[in-house]
């Protein structure tokens, strides 16, 4: 595990590592083909997309449009079948499983629809988890995780377990976990899908704030009124940008 985390306070978005001009995301002719038995499904058909530092982009599309596949590739959970993907200047296409784990750890902050918090751990220890995988020493881990939770307005909930928090609070813990490593990309997959309208508002205004502070946010959604809050909307249809 690399210890590439240099920033101490996750509340201070840093400049993307190489240079300001380097796009956070650069996709060039990305194809993704899934093979199930003799059946070949082309989930992505030549996606080219550039997202710059500080952009707030919503990826929209009906189910089956390739949204999830694109999100997996953007999040370095999967690699393209063909085409190129640079994340903050790093060529993801050539990475093996271990390098992918490391770049996910350093460069991507995930927010999932189902929160994906570990129920047996406190909010603080949930947020510490990516730092632990990044090899950050215990003391600094605690400090950074506390700061991240304070950043999302949960400084008084450090010792609470997910079960003791509301849905909106749980998703904010997840956002704190995504922020804590100071990633180049904040990747949210239907982050309000499991929330009621007031909790959705809570979480979406948090993304708006983070964007205003200079974070790069990519939000995947199928709801138009959520997508409208982003600066730019990328519409997907049948695996291609519409």
């Amino acid at each position: 595990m690399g210890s590439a985390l240099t920033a101490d306070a996750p509340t201070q978005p840093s400049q993307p590592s190489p240079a300001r001009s380097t796009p956070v995301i650069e996709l060039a002719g990305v194809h993704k083909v899934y093979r199930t038995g003799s059946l070949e499904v082309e989930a992505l058909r030549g996606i080219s997309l550039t997202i710059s530092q500080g952009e707030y982009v919503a990826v929209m599309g009906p189910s089956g449009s390739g949204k999830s596949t694109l999100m997996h590739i953007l999040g370095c959970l999967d690699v393209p079948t063909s085409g190129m993907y640079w994340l903050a200047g790093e060529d993801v296409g050539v990475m093996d499983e271990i390098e992918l784990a490391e770049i996910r750890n350093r460069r991507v902050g995930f927010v999932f629809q189902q929160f994906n918090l570990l129920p047996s751990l406190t909010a603080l220890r949930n947020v510490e988890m990516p730092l632990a995988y990044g090899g950050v020493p215990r003391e600094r881990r605690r400090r950074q995780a506390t700061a991240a939770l304070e950043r999302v307005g949960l400084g008084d909930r450090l010792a609470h377990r997910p079960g003791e928090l509301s849905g909106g609070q749980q998703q904010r813990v997840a956002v704190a976990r995504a922020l804590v490593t100071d990633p180049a990309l904040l990747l949210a997959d239907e982050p309000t899908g499991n929330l009621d309208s007031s909790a959705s508002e809570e979480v979406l205004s948090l993304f708006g704030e983070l964007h205003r502070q200079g974070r790069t946010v990519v939000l995947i959604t199928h709801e138009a009124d959520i997508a409208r809050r982003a600066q730019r909307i990328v519409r997907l249809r049948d695996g291609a940008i519409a």
Partner: protein
Amino acid sequence: MTWADLFHTGWDAIRTHKLRSMLTSLGILIGIAAVVLTVGLGQGAQQKVSKQLAALGGNLLIVTPGSSTSGGVRGGLGSASTLTLADATALTSKTAAPDVGGVAPVLQRSESLVNGSTNWTTTVVGTTASWLPVRGRTLASGRFISAADESSGAAVTVLASDTAAELFGPLDPVGQSVTINGVPYQVIGVLTSAGSDSTTNLDDQAILPFSTASQRLVGGTDRTSVGTIYVKAVSDGRLSAAYQETNAILGYRHAITSSSTSDFTITTQQSLISTTSSVDKTLTNLLIGIAALSLLVGGIGVMNIMLVSVKERTREIGLRKALGGTPALIRRQFLSEASMLGLTGGLLGVALGVGGAVVLRHFISNPIAISVPWVLIAIGVAITIGIGFGVYPAARAARLSPIDALRSE
């Protein structure tokens, strides 16, 4: 992720499923308890034997007559008593045998002892005053035969405890007399109980001065012939030196030029160890069987529950991978969890084994010794079993694709 983090995580998982973890480690628990008990029984028996040997004179050499050659015909082993009182005396030389601490010549006969209307057949041992320290015996009452008794051929006897009880019941026999071959002997002392070695009851014998026994019981012309010479080394560590000296002195005195013509045999009490360490073999075998089976079943239990755990926590594994967990770290996480299941079983097993030893002590005659190194080995075995049977589930967890894992319900 440091090892501390991994163990912290593993411990959390075990704590979250307390009952399940307890049931899983039950097999290992019973296995380890059985191991602790088996080893405890074995070591207890060994300690008992060495204590017995020390009491009987553990650093003891026993010299017995070998074969004799008369008129070109070699008799069988022990066919003639070639050992003499002079041989015994020669062994007491501090210059020729510096490692010999004591020498006791012994003549043995089975005789009937009579007290009034009671009679009891026992082994009558004719020996010298040094018999007491050489055989490591003590007196319960009265005195032992003295050099004066020896030189005067006094009609005195010292009885072993069982013999005294057979002849005199609960009464103190010291000062009373018993009749052997029609001659009355005064009882001057009683030996404390020493139990029995593999073949003889050490508490059933009557001790006479050597001269008295050879004159009155053996008779004949050969009054210096000796049945056995007991030689005690100055310490356990000098036993082999004492052996060499004894062999050399007797060889010289008997003009032995090669070991094949030797007319005496020297044995040590080491041979006793094997016969006396008769732990209850059935119990030991039963416990070993239980231990092996339980540990196997326990290991399979660990594997089973770890597979269930991996299945149940597929999403967690997906999340951990998404957050930067490499396959190696995921594997380590589940291995440390499995090893902690083993450790839990091991610790509880040791507790049960020690508790069992305390209880069993009241039901069986053999002592049970709990040894710390073996307890540590047992815990190590338990951890190893946890790891061994955790390898496959951990590998499965490490192989999961993060996307599939995150998608799972």
